[in-house]
Each structure stands twice: as C-alpha cells, then as structure tokens.
C-alpha cells in the first residue's frame, strides 16, 4: 500500500517536472558577411522568431520559415546582411514546436 502510494507520487511528480523541458538545436547557419560596414554608418542587429506547432506529427503552420524571413525584412529599411538562421525544436507532451530564429545586421 505504502509502496504503491510512493510510486504514484513519484510518477505524478515526474509528470509535472518533465513536461516539455528539453529542446534540441538542429542547425545554425551563418552567411553573407561580404559587406564592409563603414565606421560612420549606423547599423543594428535585427531578429525574428517564428514557430510551428506539431501535434503527433500533424503540422499546424507550414509557412513559419517564410514568416520569419518576412518579419526580418520588415525590420530593416536599409541593407540586411550577415543573416544567421537557427533551426531548433522544443519538445512537449505528444507534440513539439519547431522554431526558426533569424538574425541579421541592418545597415541603415
């Protein structure tokens, strides 16, 4: 009886503690550093992040990479260079989130 109660408590705690706490970075790619940034020109880092919810293999939003790209472009009126892309997954209960993080240097 005590052993069963203890086991139930351990399993319940595990359910609460282990839910969606891990993630995995699949790829980070960087390219486009072919522009000299003059000393007297302003530049800033811009970033955009979007995600796709997948439940048991069924994907909800298949345009999330394009959305990240559009969001990054919308943040820069000048030249967007040195763009890096990170593709990762956040794990969860019977589902997961695929995430795209794009960062770049905006020369204004």
């Amino acid at each position, binding site marked *: 009886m005590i052993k069963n109660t203890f086991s139930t408590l351990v*399993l319940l705690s595990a359910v609460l503690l282990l839910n969606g706490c891990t993630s995995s*970075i699949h790829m*980070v*790619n960087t390219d486009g*550093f072919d522009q000299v940034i003059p000393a007297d020109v302003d530049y800033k880092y811009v970033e955009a992040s979007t995600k796709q919810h997948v439940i048991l293999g069924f994907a909800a939003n298949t345009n999330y990479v394009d959305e990240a790209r559009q969001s990054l472009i919308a943040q820069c009126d000048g030249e967007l260079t040195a763009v890096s892309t990170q593709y990762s997954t956040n794990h969860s*209960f*019977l589902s997961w989130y695929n995430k795209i993080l794009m960062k770049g*240097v905006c020369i204004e």
Partner: protein
Amino acid sequence: MRKYLLLTPILLLTACARMDHIQVGDIDQSQGKLKPISVKVSENTVNVDTTLALTDAVLSNGSGSDEIEALRTIWALMNMGPRTGNPVFNDAYAQNVLNQLHAQCQSGKITAIRSVREANDYAIASGEIVRIDADCIL
C-alpha cells in the same frame, strides 16, 4: 562488485566526437589577407533515458523495475519531437553566435564560413556544440 569494475572503464572510455551537420559558404581569397576566426558555444546535457535504463539495470540487478520503466515512458511522452543529439535544457545557448562572430572581425568582411553542429558524447552525458569557423578578410 565485478559489474561496477566493468562499468567504470566503459563510462570513462566512451568519450566520442559526433558530427551532425556541416555547411560551408563562399570562399573568397582575392580581397586580401585572411585571418582565421572561430566561435564555439556548447551546452552540457544528460541523456535521461540512458541514465534511467542504467539506473534500472544497476538497482534492480537486471530484472527491471516497473517504476523506472514507467518513468522512461513518461519521459518519452513528455519530451516528444525530432532531436539532433541529446536534448538540452536550455535552447538559448547558440543565440549570440552572429554577434560573437561579427565582433571578431573589425572589417566586417568574413568568408569561408563553416557552420558545424557537433557534440562530445560521453555515453550518458554530452556537450552539444555549435561552432562557426571562418576567415576574416583584413
């Protein structure tokens, strides 16, 4: 006792390098001298499933424990999704590679960028690595 004596060298000697992904960009050697630069970020993590299986084997003398089996199932269900290497508990460790790379090259012109996703694997633990090697055009 003999089991632990066998287990210890196995754990100590299983450090392996693992390559998951590599991508190489344009290589421009025509614009000046090149200086190698590199950014490496990593996150230590534990392979929870292997750890639980190992705990199960050691504690229950190989016969298997229902509780640990249940924990392994819960762990698998609660952390479902595609993975590259062992899952980590912090997904922000590679967010600043762009800034760090840019900071190492004052001219801002970088070529021959190699984006590497790799890991040091120690059986139940690993160091998940994101490394960017490149050449700065001086």
